[in-house]
């Protein structure tokens, strides 16, 4: 059962007690969130089953197609900003032809997965948290538990599958649009021809850059769905609690995306 007893504590008497309690609760929360991720992950073999496939395809659509608009704008402008900033700097050394390479590599390695992660955390993650949170405070999750319908299978698994698949795909899309945005700025502001830009871009980029970026995107997907579902399933105290769950989801996934992104980079590029 996902539904848990409400935890009620006495007022803390001093700062140490407050700090200690926060620490313990944070550890407990991390453990529970990871157990939820595990619990949903073991349900993924059921994604094609008659009971679940409809929800899975619906979530794939929600995450993939409905986010395309924002992702497109963010991707295009990320590439354009990168090209403009770096290009103006490089022009002082007569090196502006190299913006292709710089935009391409930084999109593939970092900016693609990172920007996609932030956009999806803010849009899809917060929506999942709000929905799950509303269901929790409205006793709908409890009702599912009592009907022996596992919320991890019925609700979390489809979202997990959707984000694990769509985050890498969206990242590929972000990368392409970002590189295109760079080319547009290169052609219009820096006088670099399209051929020269793309030639330069793909000469230096390696497959590894793409794969590491996609691996990051996959991890970010897991982070977003885990944080959002955990926050939603543990929401309490009505509408205020739902708001709090949504806010925490965005904050915690932003932080984790930054931190995990750094360590993955360090792991693969030493």
């Amino acid at each position, binding site marked *: 059962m996902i*539904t848990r*007893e409400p935890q*009620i504590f006495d007022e803390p008497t001093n700062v140490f007690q407050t700090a200690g309690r926060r620490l313990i609760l944070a550890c407990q929360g991390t453990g529970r969130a990871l157990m939820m991720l595990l619990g949903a992950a073991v349900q993924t073999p059921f994604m094609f089953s008659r*009971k679940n496939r409809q929800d899975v395809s619906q979530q794939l659509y929600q995450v993939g197609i409905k986010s395309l608009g924002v992702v497109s704008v963010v991707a295009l402008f990320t590439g354009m900003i990168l090209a403009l900033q770096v290009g103006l700097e490089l022009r002082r050394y007569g090196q502006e032809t190299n913006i292709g390479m710089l935009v391409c590599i930084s999109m593939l390695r970092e900016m693609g997965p990172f920007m996609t992660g932030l956009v999806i955390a803010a849009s899809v993650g917060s929506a999942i948290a709000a929905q799950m949170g509303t269901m929790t405070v409205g*006793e*709908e999750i409890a*009702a599912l538990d*009592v*009907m022996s*319908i596992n919320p991890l299978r019925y609700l979390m698994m489809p979202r997990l599958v959707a984000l694990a698949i769509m985050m890498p795909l969206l990242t590929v899309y972000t990368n392409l649009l970002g590189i295109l945005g760079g080319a547009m700025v290169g052609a219009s502001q820096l006088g670099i021809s399209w051929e020269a830009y793309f030639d330069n871009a793909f000469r230096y980029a390696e497959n590894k850059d793409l794969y590491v970026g996609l691996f990051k995107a996959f991890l970010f997907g897991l982070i977003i769905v885990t944080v959002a579902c955990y926050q939603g399933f543990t929401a309490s105290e009505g509408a205020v609690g739902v708001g709090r769950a949504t806010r925490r989801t965005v904050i915690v996934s932003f932080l984790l995306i930054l931190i995990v992104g750094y360590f993955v980079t360090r792991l693969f590029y030493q």
Partner: protein
Amino acid sequence: MIRFEQVSKRFGAKVVLREIDYEIHRGETFVIVGTSGVGKSVSLRHMIRLLTPDSGRVWVGDDCVSEASGKQLERILGRFGVLFQGAALLQWLNVEDNVCLPLRQTMNLPDEEVRARATEKLALVGLEGVGDKMPADISGGMRKRVGLARAIVTQPEIILYDEPTSGLDPVISRQIDLLIDSLRKQLQVTSVVVTHDLYSALSIGTRVAMLHDGQFAVCASPEEFVASEHPVVRDFLQAQGIAHLDDVRKAFGK
């Protein structure tokens, strides 16, 4: 069937149940009444493990629900149908799919049979022809009845009703009361009903219990309940204008 053994529960400083001790028998309609916030819903939630006692145990048949887990808990919960106070419908499914949900997700029945059963239960609660409406588009009372249809669609042996008739008009309320009564008479379903409405409590209950200050002030047959001298019960009866069981019978034309 359901036994509370010295069950205590408190939330922070607020004591909700104090060493409460009672048994609900098979085929009984046990009605819990009491003022708002005394812990009626909390009692119900103990029976389905949404809450566990601070001390004491809750038994369902021969299983201790407050200590069960895994498959055992699933088996115990499978015996229950629950109508939640707020109906707890899934907002993105239409009425019919909501009622079908427990059948689709926990049993492997052909889809025609699932739909047939859902339609039948919806008709029982007086909701023909609204199957394709969304929960947001129907009234609160209708949502409640959809929740009721969902609770009984799996044909459970024990049904918990948290305020089944609050927010319903008198005619529909009466219809729901009759439904609860007929489930008991025809299928020997054990029911636990939480309600504020003494008329319906006294007409459907085989026993009526008044929860007050963490304990049952009175737990007796409708006849004894009406005759009780307990001040809280008297207040409750007076507030609803019931002096004698005949008042209830008259109101329902029995």
